[in-house]
């Protein structure tokens, strides 16, 4: 009877645990044979200890505005539930689409950078108000830190450590914001609710009627189709229809917008003009809206000129006629009755209504700098003092600086407006001082009137008077020879100097500036002294913080001050990894693999989860850049060991210095797929913290030993910050020393990109998202989705943006999924990747190939690229020459996400790419131009990506993805070109060296001999030399000098969270000799390139220009047979990073020159 049998069969079936699966399929995970098993075990052990990298994506939201950090964070955390940590004390929300102003810690320039995370922390300590000279202030907790200048360096300082007189960093330059050149009225209206825009219509649609006719008919209910004629007659469609039709909104460019029965129509595209800027400025000063339709600006009756000006502005900007009406005997109004204008001002420009709620209108911060200034001028012409002078300046279209006063005063009842203005002024590089007028009770018109606080700003027009244009002397100015200054310092307690004065004295060589001083003088930041620090009462529940990856600072305060992301800094461990690997071989078949590191250790409860549970710990759709096998890793080793030897893995872990370590013996229960502690004890371990694992397994030591060595060597090349020790069974120790003292750049978790997502994943994500609206879901759970794109996708899918993802049906998700493909979505940002960097690759290779004494090493790094929505970046290196065998195929080292790929070379995309390049033209042998070339070289490839496409489960080879293959080819071509150029250069040099020998050695001998024979004097050789050589000869030499104790500010340090600088390091000294061996004088420019991460020290003679990649000299005319010596120093490099100058010339025929190539521009 079939039923019974089925039941019988069902009884026998059971769930196969992952562990059992593994037992039968070891080869999938790299345990197929004993040699592989050894290497895989070591690999997993080592992988577990190195720093974990996760990429993150944040998208740009281009409208710039000033928002309160508390409001902003509270609002965001209301929309999306944040993570709660530390028992609810800390709430954290990762977001995308926001940027903030910070200063670049290397260049000291101002930038807008993405915010990655929002934090709010329950108030648990005192709050201090730090006030600076000029009265700007910031309220901070005592453990928060803020950027300042101390001991000659710019660094973060804890609030609790601040004292009066300390200097803090503030912005002092113009900000570049994303420019908005016109306002798309339709788009802005679409952002409002349909109720708000109900009564608005679009006019002038007859021109494009045919384009929209079909869709209109489609939307109109069957019994109202006649309305289409109405539309035609009135030449108007209701605005809200736009929400329902799909059309390229550009067709409405010529249309206007107005309320029904309105008389003043406004164009759908409002261009940003100076008139608009001025209008908005004046409006904020003097404007108000009443009755929902009256737009009113009030002036004193004596301000006739201003009034006329404003009336003209109305016409110029809105094409509308304003009326001038007398309000009362001292006041005049300029009025327009226009509902649409009032609406736009209120809802779109968000100007605020009452005097104490006024704000700077939306978009103003996105105006070009000069228009921002126009806005300010207009505002000041209305509300500033002395307004007459300001107005006359405005009329003449002059800039603020031309106003013939020392300072301008403005007062406003709106604290927010005052703050906005402070920032706006800062954004165009103008300093101001802040003050508050406490309210006073005044008698006005016979009645007691209460005035609220009035906030005042003093704007300094002339440069040099404001404190912002001064620098402290200490740590900035050195070797002062100016007696007046010295006197002032000695007797007048002068502690600061204006920047201009300092630069002038420097130019005339009366003093020199330190490196920091030099940077500061040309930077976009300034230093202000702390005037006061006092505790304040704070009645808020939370304090707020944000994280800005990379620069770790943001401008904040009433009046911008540079604050540090202290919370993030606390989370970093910043330990440079030391890894110890030992393999013992007690019997023929058995190996003991030991891996030890100095990391933070693992808490006891987690040990079984980490080491003894397969497929544990991976959130399916969180695209995490992990270093190797995902989720299986070390547990597989433990399992394999248990299977083959029956012995249990031993793990020692220590998490804190003053606590003992715990030793655990671990087994895996394969039925339950769980780890079980067989035995544990407390033990003593000398390290401050770390993890150690010891596993016994069956492995072929003899064969595997060499692979282990190769693997560890390769690993050390691509992880230059790690120090690896490998002890063999016979006691031999190999040391792979670290070649970099900084951790690799941290990258964070990336959200999936819509292009790469599967429908099933999409649905799963929707069930797990914290967002409650579809638009927020898209914006926050995916990368590259900002407001515009999210809305576009929703529109395309015909879904309401406010739908709750949890309520959506499968069909709706299908529409959404298809919409992804149809809407143009930006590529994921690629700053999330953590490439190794050319300098470090080179250094690593150099150190590892020392015994080979290679002839040269070249590297190339491609810019990041994308495949299927995943960012990736290719870096390559070539080691050439020396003792490498000339007649064997080149050695190929492949790496993916800093892990060496040791097997399946033939199947790998890297190999395919290399084989498809014709290497014969680069000096290598390659029969028929395809295949692996033959020659004395090592090729290194590293691919960093959030998702490496492997060919199979064993993850040893990269799949043939076209984009990746292309990038690899491009990278190798780039480095091969460098090789070729180097060889050509060498050949040319040899040739010219011959000529050089000729003229320096042989020619004089000929002259001497012939003179001797004829008994005549030796003839002069100069002219002959130039005729023979007929070139401009350029020769260079790079030497290294070790420097001790000198404070060398190196670029690489900026990423070090502890903020240390190297005291001592190498200075590269480069000498360039230029000799003119041509018959005529020569005059030209010379460029010397240097690596990006180096800092330039002394340069002689004074160059014309220095950027972060080259130095340019415009040389004076050199006579025939004359020579010029040039010299420059570089810091921040290791010895040998830079050993040959890369020189270029300009304004001279390049064939005349030996030793430099033609300058092609940047």
């Amino acid at each position, binding site marked *: 009877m079939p039923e019974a049998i089925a039941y019988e069969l069902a009884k026998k079936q059971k769930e196969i645990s992952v562990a059992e699966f593994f037992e039968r399929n070891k080869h999938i995970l790299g345990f197929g044979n004993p040699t592989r098993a050894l290497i895989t075990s070591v690999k997993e052990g080592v992988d577990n200890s190195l720093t974990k990298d996760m990429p993150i994506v944040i998208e740009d939201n281009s409208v710039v505005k000033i928002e309160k950090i508390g409001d902003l964070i509270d609002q965001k955390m209301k929309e999306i539930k944040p993570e709660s940590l530390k028992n609810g004390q800390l709430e954290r929300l990762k977001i995308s689409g926001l940027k903030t102003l910070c200063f670049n810690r290397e260049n000291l320039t101002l930038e807008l950078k993405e915010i990655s995370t929002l934090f709010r922390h329950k108030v648990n300590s005192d709050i201090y108000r730090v006030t600076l000279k000029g009265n700007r202030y910031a309220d901070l907790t005592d453990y928060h830190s803020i950027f300042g200048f101390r001991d000659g360096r710019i660094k973060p300082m804890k609030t609790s450590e601040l004292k009066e007189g300390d200097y803090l960093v503030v912005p002092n330059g113009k900000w570049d914001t994303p420019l908005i050149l016109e306002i798309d009225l339709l788009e802005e209206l679409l952002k409002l609710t349909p109720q708000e825009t109900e009564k608005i219509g679009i006019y002038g649609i007859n021109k494009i009627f045919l384009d929209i006719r079909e869709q209109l008919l489609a939307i109109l209910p069957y019994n109202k189709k006649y309305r289409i004629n109405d539309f035609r007659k009135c030449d108007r469609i209701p605005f809200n229809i736009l929400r329902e039709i799909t059309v390229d909104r550009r067709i409405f460019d010529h249309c206007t917008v107005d309320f029904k029965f309105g008389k003043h129509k406004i164009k759908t595209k409002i261009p940003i003009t100076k008139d608009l800027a001025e209008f908005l400025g004046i409006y904020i000063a003097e404007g108000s809206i009443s009755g929902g339709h009256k737009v009113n600006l009030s002036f004193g009756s004596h301000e006739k000129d201003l009034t006329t000006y404003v009336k003209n502005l109305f016409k110029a900007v809105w094409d509308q006629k304003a009326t001038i009406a007398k309000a009362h005997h001292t006041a005049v109004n300029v009025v327009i009755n226009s509902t649409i204008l009032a609406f736009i001002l209120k809802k779109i420009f968000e100007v605020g209504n009452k005097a104490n709620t006024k704000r700077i209108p939306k978009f103003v911060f996105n105006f070009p700098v000069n228009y921002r200034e126009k806005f300010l001028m207009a505002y000041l012409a209305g509300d500033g003092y002395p307004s007459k002078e300001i107005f006359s300046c405005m009329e003449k279209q002059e800039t603020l600086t031309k106003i013939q006063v020392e300072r301008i005063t403005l007062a406003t009842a709106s604290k927010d407006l005052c703050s906005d203005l402070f920032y706006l002024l800062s954004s165009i590089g103008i300093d101001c001082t802040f003050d508050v007028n406490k309210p006073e009770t005044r008698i006005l018109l016979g009645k007691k009137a209460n005035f609220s606080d009035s906030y005042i700003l003093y704007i300094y027009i002339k440069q040099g008077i404001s404190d912002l244009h001064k620098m402290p002397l200490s740590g900035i100015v050195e070797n002062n020879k100016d007696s007046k200054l010295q006197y002032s310092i000695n007797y007048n307690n002068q502690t600061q100097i204006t920047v201009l004065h300092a630069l002038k004295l420097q130019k005339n060589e009366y003093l020199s500036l330190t490196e920091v001083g030099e940077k500061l003088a040309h930077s976009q930041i300034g230093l202000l002294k702390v005037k006061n620090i006092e505790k304040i009462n704070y009645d808020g529940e939370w304090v707020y913080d944000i994280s800005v990856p990379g620069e770790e600072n943001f401008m904040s305060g009433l009046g911008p001050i540079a604050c540090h992301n202290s919370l993030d800094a606390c989370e970093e461990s910043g330990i440079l990894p030391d890894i110890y690997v030992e393999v013992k071989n007690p019997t023929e078949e058995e190996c003991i693999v030991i891996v030890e590191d100095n990391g933070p250790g693992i808490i006891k409860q987690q040990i079984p989860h980490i080491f003894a549970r397969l497929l544990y710990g991976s959130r399916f759709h969180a695209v995490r850049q992990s270093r190797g096998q995902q989720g299986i890793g070390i547990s597989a080793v433990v399992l394999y060991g248990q299977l083959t030897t029956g012995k249990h893995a031993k793990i020692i872990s220590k998490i804190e210095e003053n606590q003992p370590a715990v030793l655990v013996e671990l087994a895996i229960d394969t039925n339950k797929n769980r780890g079980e502690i067989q035995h544990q004890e407390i033990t003593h371990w000398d390290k401050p913290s770390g993890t150690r694992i010891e596993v016994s397994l069956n492995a072929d030591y003899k064969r595997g030993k060499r692979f282990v060595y190769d693997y560890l060597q390769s690993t050390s090349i691509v992880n230059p910050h790690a120090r690896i020790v490998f002890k063999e069974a016979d006691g031999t120790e190999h040391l792979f020393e670290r070649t970099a003292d900084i951790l690799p750049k941290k990258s964070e978790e990336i959200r999936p990109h819509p292009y790469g997502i599967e429908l099933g994943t999409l649905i799963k994500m929707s069930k797990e998202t914290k967002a409650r609206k579809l638009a927020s879901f898209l914006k926050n759970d995916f990368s590259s989705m900002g407001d515009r794109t999210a809305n576009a996708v929703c529109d395309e899918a015909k879904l309401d943006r406010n739908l709750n993802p949890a309520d959506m049906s499968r069909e709706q998700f299908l529409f959404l999924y298809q919409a992804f493909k149809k809407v143009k979505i930006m590529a994921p940002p690629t700053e999330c990747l953590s490439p190794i960097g050319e300098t470090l690759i080179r250094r690593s290779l150099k150190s590892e190939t020392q015994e080979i004494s290679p002839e040269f090493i070249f590297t190339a790094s491609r810019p990041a690229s994308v495949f299927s929505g995943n960012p990736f970046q290719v870096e390559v290196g070539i080691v050439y020459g020396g003792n490498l065998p000339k007649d064997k195929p080149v050695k190929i080292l492949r790496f993916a996400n800093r892990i060496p790929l040791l097997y399946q070379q033939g199947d790998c995309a890297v190999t395919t790419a290399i084989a498809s390049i014709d290497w014969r033209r680069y000096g290598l042998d390659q029969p028929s131009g395809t295949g692996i070339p033959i020659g004395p070289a090592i090729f290194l490839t590293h691919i960093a990506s959030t998702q490496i496409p492997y060919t199979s489960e064993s993850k040893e080879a990269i799949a043939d993805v076209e984009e990746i293959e292309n990038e690899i080819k491009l990278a190798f071509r780039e480095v091969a070109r460098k090789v070729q150029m180097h060889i050509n250069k060498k050949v040319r040099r040899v040739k010219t060296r011959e000529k050089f020998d000729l003229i320096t050695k042989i*020619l004089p001998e000929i*002259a001497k001999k*012939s003179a001797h*024979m004829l008994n005549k004097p030796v003839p002069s*050789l100069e*002219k*002959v030399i130039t005729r023979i050589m007929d070139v401009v000869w350029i020769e260079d030499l790079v030497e290294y000098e070790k420097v001790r104790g000198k404070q060398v500010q190196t670029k690489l340090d900026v990423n070090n969270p502890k903020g240390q600088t190297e005291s001592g390091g190498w200075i590269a000294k480069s000498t360039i000799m230029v000799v003119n061996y041509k018959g005529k004088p020569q005059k030209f420019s010379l460029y010397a390139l240097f690596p990006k991460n180096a800092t330039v020290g002394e340069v002689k003679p004074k160059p014309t220009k220095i950027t972060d990649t080259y130095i340019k000299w415009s040389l004076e005319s050199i006579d025939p047979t004359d020579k010029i010596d040039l010299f420059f120093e570089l810091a921040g490099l290791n010895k040998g990073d830079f050993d040959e100058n890369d020189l270029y010339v300009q304004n001279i025929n390049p064939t005349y020159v030996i030793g430099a190539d033609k300058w092609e521009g940047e």
Partner: protein
Amino acid sequence: MQRDYSGVITKIDSIAAKVYADLEKAEIPALQLSTRTKANIRFDDDLNVWKYGKNKTERSANSLDGAYMLLRTMYLVDFIKDMIKEKKSSTLRETYYISEGWNLAKFSSQNESDLLAEDLEVITGCMREDFKLRPEEDGARVIGNLVVEEMTRNNTKKKIHCQDDVGDAGYGIPYNVEKEKLSFKEVDADFIVAIETGGMFDRLVENGFDTDSRAVLVHLKGQPARSTRRFIKRLNEEKKLPVLVFTDCDPWSFRIFGSVAYGAIKTAHISEYLATPAAQYLGVTPSDIENYKLPTDTLTSEDIAALKSELDDPRFQDQFWKHEIKLQLNLGKKSEQQALAKYGLDYVTDTYLPEKLVEMGMLKK
């Protein structure tokens, strides 16, 4: 006998002067000399020999190699002047070794110094001997009814009869065969036979050919030395003896004939001293191979290339040579002179040579 070397000194001084003058004028110093290639030889009707044409090459200090050569030239010229002053001479090999002390001007190989000496000859028009430079090579052997008078190293004159006073090896031609060193006293012979191989020379001597046929036998020893050629030329001109050249049948041997009769390309500047325009080619010709059915070897590719090159050689442009060379190319074979032994050791003296001599009008029959 003292020779006046002042002319030589003037000529070599002019080399130094040219270089010096160039430097003074701020020009790159350079020396010009005739190109010594096949393309640059032309027949001089007056002298009846082949000399260099108009093409010149330049050794200039513009290149590293040229500069080195100029330096070496200066040193060599200075050295020659010294030798002349000190009344010493040196071999080419010694010169090469002496250059070791010239620092930068050191010769990198013997060949280099030999070539430089030739360059000097070409520029100045003097001979090596004028520079007091001697080669290693020795002259050929002579057996015949001829009396020469040689000025020995003791500065005495000695008479030597080239049959009675010499052994089987014959009289060895010294390196200097100029009048002050060697003169011809008496001769009783009808013609001179210049023989390429030593084996054939010995055969003829053993067979008594010199007495029977009244010939002066000269063993060329392969490509003949200058002294040998000079000797033959002087003997031919002074004693009016016809010269017949008897070699193997292959292109290299034809060249040997060429250097005796027309002048070598390398010494074209002094062809008038060394070449014997009246010399005639006796054998072995490709026609002889056919007529006498001689044992042969196949021509190698180098042989064929050399033959083709000779077709272009201006010195071999007459009817006879063109016919013979083309014949040989068609035969594809070469033969040695000693192959005549096929018909017996005496065949050459009994049959072959008499037949050839009648053909050429040397003997009457």
